[in-house]
């Protein structure tokens, strides 16, 4: 009888993180890159909840709440930045950004 163990969830989290990382590297649209950051944050959340079940403590699920709030704040600020960039150059591609070059 095979049992769904902690390892399976950790493997899924590793795969999800890797996919998010790949997307972050190969896409040039700032919006898609934000979605990939969300993927990576969610894989970390999955790890937290898996650890919460593994150790039988509630702290893992509380950490997920903090990650959730930080992710929401990050999305709000990041999308505002994307909108203001788009107003300037009418494209959301990160490679055309020269504004922050020193």
């Amino acid at each position, binding site marked *: 009888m095979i049992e769904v163990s902690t390892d399976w969830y950790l493997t899924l989290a590793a795969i999800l993180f890797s996919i998010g990382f790949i997307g972050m590297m190969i896409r040039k649209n700032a919006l898609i890159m934000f979605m990939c950051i969300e993927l990576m944050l969610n894989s970390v*959340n999955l790890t937290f909840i898996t650890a919460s*079940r593994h150790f039988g403590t509630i702290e893992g699920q509380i950490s997920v709440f903090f990650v959730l709030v930080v992710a929401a704040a990050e999305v709000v*600020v990041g*999308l505002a930045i994307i909108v203001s960039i788009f107003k300037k150059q009418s494209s959301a*591609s990160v490679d055309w950004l020269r504004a922050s070059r020193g």
Partner: protein
Amino acid sequence: MLDIVLFAVPAGLVILGALIVIFAKNPVHNAMGLVLTLASLAIIYITLNATFVAMVQMLVYAGAVMTLFLFVIMMIGVDKPEQTREEIKGQTFLVSGALLILGGIVSYVVIKSGLKWDLWFPAVDYTLEGTPDLIAGSLFTEWILPFEIISILLIVATAAAIALAYDTKPRKKL
């Protein structure tokens, strides 16, 4: 058997949604792939006995954050083709190198332990149900200071978003 099905089907949907996120060309499709991933993750959270977190995941991520994403996609338009020319020299090469390292580490761990990751601490044998009751009891006593700091962070983020997106230039009269 039911356990395995309840893990495998949402896990497959998670990976499918993630692949849609990184490979679809239309930004709306990417956003829908992200919704698929987040909703399937909520199912996985339920199988991990984190029911309240699963509900919050559905409300905050699949509800609020995705709506925000779709609003921005609506504002900046979806009809512009993505730039494909490489601005950074050797970007693909560097990404493949990073992927090789990442894949090497994962396959090393898997081969060495045969998918039994050597967790140093044994699992407990009782099941912990992540009810609102239990979470609030810990969040509002032990973790009250981070909780209050988070509220400051949210206010700062809201003010920053308004300051960034606010149009200071005078508009032409129509």
